[in-house]
């Protein structure tokens, strides 16, 4: 007897973005300038989302673009910058203009905050925050005595995302997500985030059949029951890279950075690259096949 059909969690990018309401606490996967769910970010901007809090470990174009589009009210992370591309200028202007509140956390404390949710704790202990102004400006960080030694420790709050969005190479319609063998730190951060929340959305380069999942069972680090929705979005982290698929589009990022110099220029960038293209494929067509092809990363053939 053949089994009944499995539930498909495959939805469209606009549908997926609608699952992030105004004011949500949104955790975005990737790390710094690597493998950010940028197509999802652009869709949030298209939908004119407002009042978001972004929680991350290290952020870049994701937060900068959302800040430049006025979607954000708060960011909780360790870093917002563009690495070799310089400072995140939309973010800077929003913070300096008092339109965006930043809650600063140490880099590994950002990971620990998701580890807290993974362990279903409301806090994570720390011994290394004494004297640091991350405590001064954050009244959600408390002190408490170690229950074993009595020593005074800090407790910082769990990340508590309402929704987690990560970008991966492959998933099936049920939401089994494959992380490639040759992964690096950003992919591990995605796995951690995907284990910290009950509402996890995955944008995937490719929707694969179950046979592919079974062949990569060792690498299915986020199984179906962890995932709420899957969206097929090839080139979904562009212009940031997806390890094993494509490199950073430095040319496009240069034009982004140039546009981010002023609100006016950035509004024009958003019109051109986010609002005017009918959808993600129109965005890709605008980039053109030559540019996309040049970015290919072969990953490992072993």
């Amino acid at each position, binding site marked *: *007897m053949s*089994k*009944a*059909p*499995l*539930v498909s969690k495959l939805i469209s990018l606009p549908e997926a973005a609608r699952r992030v309401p105004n004011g949500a606490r949104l955790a975005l996967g990737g790390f710094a300038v690597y493998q950010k769910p940028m197509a999802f970010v652009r869709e949030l901007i298209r939908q004119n989302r407002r009042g978001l809090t972004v929680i991350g470990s290290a952020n870049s174009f994701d937060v900068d673009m959302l800040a430049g589009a006025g979607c954000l009210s708060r960011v909780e992370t360790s870093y917002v910058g563009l690495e070799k591309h310089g400072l995140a200028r939309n973010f800077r202007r929003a913070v300096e203009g008092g339109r965006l509140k930043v809650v600063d956390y140490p880099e590994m404390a950002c990971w620990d905050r998701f580890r807290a*949710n*993974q*362990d*279903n*704790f409301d806090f994570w202990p720390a011994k290394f925050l004494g004297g640091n102004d991350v405590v001064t400006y954050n009244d959600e960080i408390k002190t408490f005595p170690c229950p074993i030694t009595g020593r005074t420790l800090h407790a910082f709050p769990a990340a508590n995302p309402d929704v987690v969005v990560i970008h991966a190479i492959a998933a099936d319609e*049920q939401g*089994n997500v494959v992380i490639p063998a040759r992964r690096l730190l950003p992919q591990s951060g995605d796995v951690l985030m995907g*284990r*910290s929340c*009950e509402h996890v959305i995955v944008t995937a380069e490719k929707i694969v059949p*179950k046979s592919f*999942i*079974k062949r990569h*069972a*060792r690498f*299915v*680090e*986020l*199984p*179906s*029951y*962890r995932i709420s929705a899957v969206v097929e979005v090839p080139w979904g982290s562009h212009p940031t890279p997806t390890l094993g698929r494509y490199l950073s589009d430095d040319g496009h990022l240069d034009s982004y950075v140039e546009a981010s110099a002023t609100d006016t220029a950035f509004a024009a960038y958003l019109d051109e690259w986010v609002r005017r293209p009918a959808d993600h494929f129109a965005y890709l067509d605008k980039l053109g096949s030559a540019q996309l092809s040049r970015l290919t990363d072969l990953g490992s053939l072993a």
Partner: protein
Amino acid sequence: MTAPATLNETLAVVLARSFADGEVGFTGLLTGAAAALFGTGIPLAAMELAKRLHAPNLTILLAGCYHNPDFSEIDRLPDSEHSAMLRDLPCEAQMVDYPGQFVLKRGDVSFGFSSAVQVDRVGNINSVCVGPHDRPKVRLVGPILQPEHMTLFRREYVMMPHHDRRNFVQKVDYVSGVGYPGGLEGRKKLGLDWGGPCLVVTPKCIFDFDREAGLMKVRSIHRGVTRQDLQDATGFDLGDLSAVPETEHPSESELEILRHHVDPRGVLMPAL
């Protein structure tokens, strides 16, 4: 005409009917013929059956690690949890680390199966010791994952391969898995957010719980077992059993699927 259901088949069907679609079910890998059958084989058959009936999206966690394994090419159940055989068994995901794919403390596991040497009236279970803890009459294996099964899983099936007075006791000698002391309110006072035993399955009967009162009660008695047999084999008073029905029977189609599709070669539920 179809041969009548065996006890194993009956239990597999009773369990299967209780699983909802989309749930995640966790088995250990018990050893020893009776324990392996009750703790691993029947639960796996029940989950495979449910997947073919009303719960195609159920996830099986074999030995707590191997997601939806493919049993079609093996001749007997594995008897070692983290061996080369399980490494090589086809599946959809392998949990090879902790914290791993299922997020234990967030309640990703919908239900689990455990076994114990003692169960008591409120559903506490014990696999640590018989007699005082510091100088036990019998030292057993330890709490293993029972504390987690009985609190972090959303519900638990306690699978008891033997039903004797020494197993069903007024009060366990050591609580290694918490039932309903003080009922649901009692669990809340203990700081437990969810979980606890839902059924206790034995060769003689199936117990469920008055969760408010925190008391185990006989839900059904297996065909061929008398009420007197059952009370005699139980170390506490079962109360008035006169209204307790016989354990529900599998339907023809459930039996057909179980026998011809779930376990045609007797890999999951070998005849003992």
